[in-house]
């Protein structure tokens, strides 16, 4: 039951991250087209770092998908995934609190922070137990 729940959480999060990562990566190339209208209010520097984050998200999402297939892999990546998810939530909370992003994203940052914290808790508590090996 716990293993199935972990596979579900890890797989869904992995798919989400791969999708978001690809979108950020290709947004950089779309931005280079003459006369392009970026979907997000970012300049050249913003797109540069978004593409960097996109590549990292694809790698992270791929690792989570691997963790969903193989529980030993999932056990290895779950703690750092929980830590990184907490980081994603923390900067969103600060961004929302300071108000600089409110006009653009409203309360979305706060909802995303809650989602990431719940996901982090799931990765902490659903982390697969170590395999028992009989010598």
């Amino acid at each position, binding site marked *: 039951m716990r293993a199935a729940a972990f596979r579900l959480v890890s797989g869904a999060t992995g798919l989400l991250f791969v999708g978001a990562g690809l979108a950020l990566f290709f947004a950089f190339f779309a931005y280079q087209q003459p006369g392009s209208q970026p979907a997000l*209010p970012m300049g050249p520097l913003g797109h540069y770092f978004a593409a960097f984050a996109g590549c990292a998200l694809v790698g992270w999402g791929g690792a989570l998908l691997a963790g969903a297939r193989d529980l030993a892999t999932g056990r290895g990546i779950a703690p750092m995934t*929980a830590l990184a998810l907490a980081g994603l939530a923390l900067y969103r909370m600060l961004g929302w*609190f300071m*108000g600089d992003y*409110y006009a653009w994203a409203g309360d979305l940052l706060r909802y995303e922070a809650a989602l990431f914290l719940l996901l982090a808790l799931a990765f*902490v508590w659903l982390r697969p137990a170590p395999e028992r090996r009989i010598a």
Partner: protein
Amino acid sequence: MLRWIATLVLVGLFALNLWMPSSPLGRRGNERTVRAHVPAAASWVGQRLPDLAFEDLDGRVVRSADLLGHPLLLVFERSVDW
């Protein structure tokens, strides 16, 4: 043990996320600033524009005196070029 520490931190952050004021600090700060300055600004209506000097995008200095003699719309906005 580590699992419980992580849980404590995450639940604490979740509670903080729920507990934070219903409107962001910055927005409330802006409202306070505007409210604090509105009475002063109201007293400026009808007054002469002070002598000001700005630099345009090409680096040329534009003085408020240069703008006299024709209709003028001044727009103040915060940059959103991130």
